């Protein structure tokens, strides 16, 4: 198996990209932890995130993270087998529900993050 196997085919490359999303997301969460711990230095020591560099980094992470969400939720629909009244729920419905849950969760989190900022 040549080690560059994943460059030879689009599907393989997309798979590697999907797996790679873990790294940027991890970095971003580490940043989040770091930011939270920054609260310990009190009101004066805390610097809210404003830098353009950070925004650029977040944009990149957002792209990866959206790709992760898209692939993971879609694939989750494939693997779940839910039966209601002995009838198999088609995976299309499951995927749809997953994306619905995603929208709701995102709305709730966004609400909390914004509402409590007043």
């Amino acid at each position, binding site marked *: 198996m040549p080690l560059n196997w994943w460059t030879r085919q689009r599907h393989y490359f997309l798979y*590697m990209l999907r797996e790679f999303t873990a790294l940027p997301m991890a970095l971003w969460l580490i940043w989040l932890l770091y930011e939270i711990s920054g609260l310990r230095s009190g009101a004066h020591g*805390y610097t809210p995130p404003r830098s353009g560099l950070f925004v650029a980094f977040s*944009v990149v992470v957002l792209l990866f*993270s959206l790709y992760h969400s898209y692939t*993971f939720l879609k694939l989750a629909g494939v693997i779940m087998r839910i039966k209601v009244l002995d009838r198999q729920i088609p995976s299309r419905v499951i995927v749809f529900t997953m994306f619905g*849950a995603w929208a709701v969760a995102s709305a709730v*989190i966004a609400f909390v993050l*914004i509402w409590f900022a007043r």
Partner: protein
Amino acid sequence: MNAEHRPRTAIDHLFFWFMFANGGVITALLMPVHVLVQGILGPLGVVPVVDQHYDTYANVIGNPLVKLYLLVLIGFAFFHFAHRLRYLLADFGVPAAKSLPAQVIFYGGAVVVILVTIWILLTTIPISFG
């Protein structure tokens, strides 16, 4: 596959996969909105966001539910990341990534991050129900 070989469910892998899958769902559902709001909209000033001010942020982080939420998010996420990155290494042709030491390093790393998270959450803003 020799005759004496007795197959056995690999409980360790089962556990890792369980954590990975949960982490995957949790990050899929929650990550984008955090990055969008806290990482882009907030810093650009498009909307007010809690972490743009010490007071509002401290207020929110003091909430025990928020602490619990963050622990769950970060805890599962890092198991997810550890798992993916370990497999990614294997995909790059490093068979050692499948070995026991690699498991200790990667999932151990996730555990370390979780411990650090707990420590930070417990030491940062005292729990309050305001």
